[in-house]
């Protein structure tokens, strides 16, 4: 297995301080980057093939190159809202190596010619926010932030902004509205943030892990970094493994290794005597995969080909002692709670999905309800400003289609327990003269 980049010596005592970080070679990449012209730094990011680690997997260098040229206020925003259920890699990075993120941001801002930067950290990460705040202060007093950094022509301010608990603020335009002091409602795209983002200015938004990788790309060189991983999924990735495994936690892997190696080799697999029933490859928003798909290589394209996604790299394992109905209902309730309510398909779709799943759970449903659940999911997908609705629709639809037998069996068992007898199919609408 490959060596570690992000996690190397991450448990070194005091790594959160500038002194230890610098002793470990920290901020050397920044110095190297500032000696290069901006274009060369950007070229390194492009060459590295680094794809965003927050969920969408868009090429980071390309995104940075979309920012218009010229003298104006340009913004770099670090998305540290990490609220996708199952994901906790950014928390570990910010808590243990905050300077890696700060250094990455300064370099990325240099490449994109941004002069103001923000870290939007979720409100629940209070302890991590305090650690980051100290790190930013240290970086400022060392001259890594502020006017004319280390004598170059690069100036950058960095402000840490704490959220207050809303999943939707991890969506980039919802985040921008929240950072502007509003309710975190997503915006219509286009215009994309690269043209009109924060305060209507050009804005580059990247995930914590993406930005923390930047110093390593500069150190290795973009082309050298691209040799790690697979051709279209370069580099190493932090995966958060949770759920029914023996050693849940964060692991750094080279993209493209088999998923089985992560779930069983690193995280120890389910408890003795239990088997994997299904697993989410990229957070709770990704369609579930079955044990038959455990040998697929874990990278962006293989997961997409299997009908799911790598997402934020959060693997949630569900073992055979769990009920799929229960998992689907837990998920749907979460998305109902977090829907901002701006778009009807998401607001109503999440609500009705919860109600239908509750009918399934209680045994009042008929198999026809499962068809309706599936059709509601289809009508949510692609019909909203952001993908929160899709984030519920995709996993719920995949659970209903892959485990339909279990949903039906659950309904029957519940009916029998309650003594409800055979389900009565509702009278077809035509028979009562509706629509004729």
């Amino acid at each position, binding site marked *: 297995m490959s060596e570690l980049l992000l996690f190397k010596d991450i448990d070194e005592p005091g790594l959160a301080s500038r002194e230890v970080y610098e002793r470990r070679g920290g901020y050397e990449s920044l110095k190297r980057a500032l000696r290069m012209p901006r274009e060369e730094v950007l070229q390194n990011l492009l060459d590295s093939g680094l794809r965003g680690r927050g969920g969408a997997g868009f090429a980071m260098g390309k995104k940075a190159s979309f920012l218009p040229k010229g003298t104006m206020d340009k913004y770099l925003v670090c998305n540290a809202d990490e609220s996708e*259920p199952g994901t906790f890699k950014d928390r570990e990075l910010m808590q243990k190596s905050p300077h890696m993120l700060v250094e990455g941001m300064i370099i990325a801002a240099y490449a994109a010619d941004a002069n103001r930067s923000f870290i939007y950290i979720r409100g*629940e990460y209070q302890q991590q926010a305090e650690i980051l705040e100290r790190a930013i202060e240290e970086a400022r007093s060392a001259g890594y932030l502020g006017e004319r950094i280390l004598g170059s022509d690069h100036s950058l301010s960095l402000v840490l902004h704490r959220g207050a*608990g809303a999943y939707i603020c991890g969506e980039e335009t919802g985040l921008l509205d929240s950072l502007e002091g509003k309710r975190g409602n997503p915006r219509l795209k286009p215009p994309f943030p690269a043209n009109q983002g924060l305060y209507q200015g050009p804005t580059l938004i990247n995930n914590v892990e993406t930005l923390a990788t930047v110093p390593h790309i500069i150190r290795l060189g973009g082309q050298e970094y691209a040799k790690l991983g697979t051709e279209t999924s370069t580099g190493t990735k932090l995966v958060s493994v949770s759920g029914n495994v023996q050693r849940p936690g964060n692991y750094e892997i080279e993209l493209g290794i088999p998923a089985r190696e992560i779930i069983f080799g690193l995280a120890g697999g389910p408890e003795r005597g239990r088997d994997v029933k299904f697993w989410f490859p990229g957070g709770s928003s990704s369609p579930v995969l079955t044990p038959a798909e455990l040998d697929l290589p874990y990278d962006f394209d293989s997961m997409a080909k299997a009908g799911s996604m790598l997402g934020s790299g959060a693997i949630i394992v569900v073992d055979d002692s769990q009920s799929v109905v229960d998992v689907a209902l837990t998920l749907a309730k979460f998305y109902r709670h977090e829907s901002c309510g701006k778009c009807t398909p998401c607001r109503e779709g999440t609500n009705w999905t919860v109600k239908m799943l509750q009918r399934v759970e209680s045994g009042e449903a008929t198999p026809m309800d499962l068809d309706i659940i599936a059709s509601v999911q289809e009508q949510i997908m692609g019909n909203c400003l952001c993908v929160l609705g899709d984030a519920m629709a995709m996993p719920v639809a995949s659970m209903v289609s892959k485990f339909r037998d279990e949903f039906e069996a659950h309904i029957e068992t519940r009916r029998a327990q309650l003594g409800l007898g055979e389900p009565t199919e509702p009278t077809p609408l035509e028979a009562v003269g509706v629509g004729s």
Partner: protein
Amino acid sequence: MSVARYDHGSRIPGWDDAVDLSKDPASIPDPALTPVPAELRQQIEAAMARYPDFRSAAIPALHAAQELHGWCSPEAIEQVACVMRLTPAYLTAVVGFYDMFESKPVGRNTVYVCTNISCSLRGARELHAAVQQAAGDDPDFNVRAFECLGACDIAPMASVNGAYVGPLELSDAERIVEQLRAGEDVLPEKQLLRRKVADPRASTDAPALFDDEDRA
């Protein structure tokens, strides 16, 4: 904000009684008539100075006001509105959007128990019930089932006054409540900040973090 509802989901009439439609909406409070504690004013003004647009300070300002008042009371909102020169309605809308802002009076000790998927696979709902039972009807406690807190590696877990602890047993519920009452550090041996990374290769004594020869 929770709205009283019938079992079938409709709102019970009168849920919006507090709104007196014959009155004008509240305008930006008059500084001469709105006393604002000096420390809160200073915190809000410092937050406003950090952003190119002062409105960005709405969330930090409300955090500070909630810290002082215990919840986002009408009085707290009025004070923020007064310093920031925004309407109370604008701030109330912001408060209503975010889970961490309390729109009703709550206990000082906040315990968020994560009940999202990874934690519920490991018994979080039972844990939430146990913490609720341990706290009973003590008005000093604010026990909430919360969405994913981003610590699935220590599932099931809770955030106790902002400090993450886990993995929790059902018996820890009593201890959390007792330690909070006694003003002690909560479950020191289970605090997230003392935990090492799960990846076994992360803790090895390798040379410098950025060692160039290392890759050659």
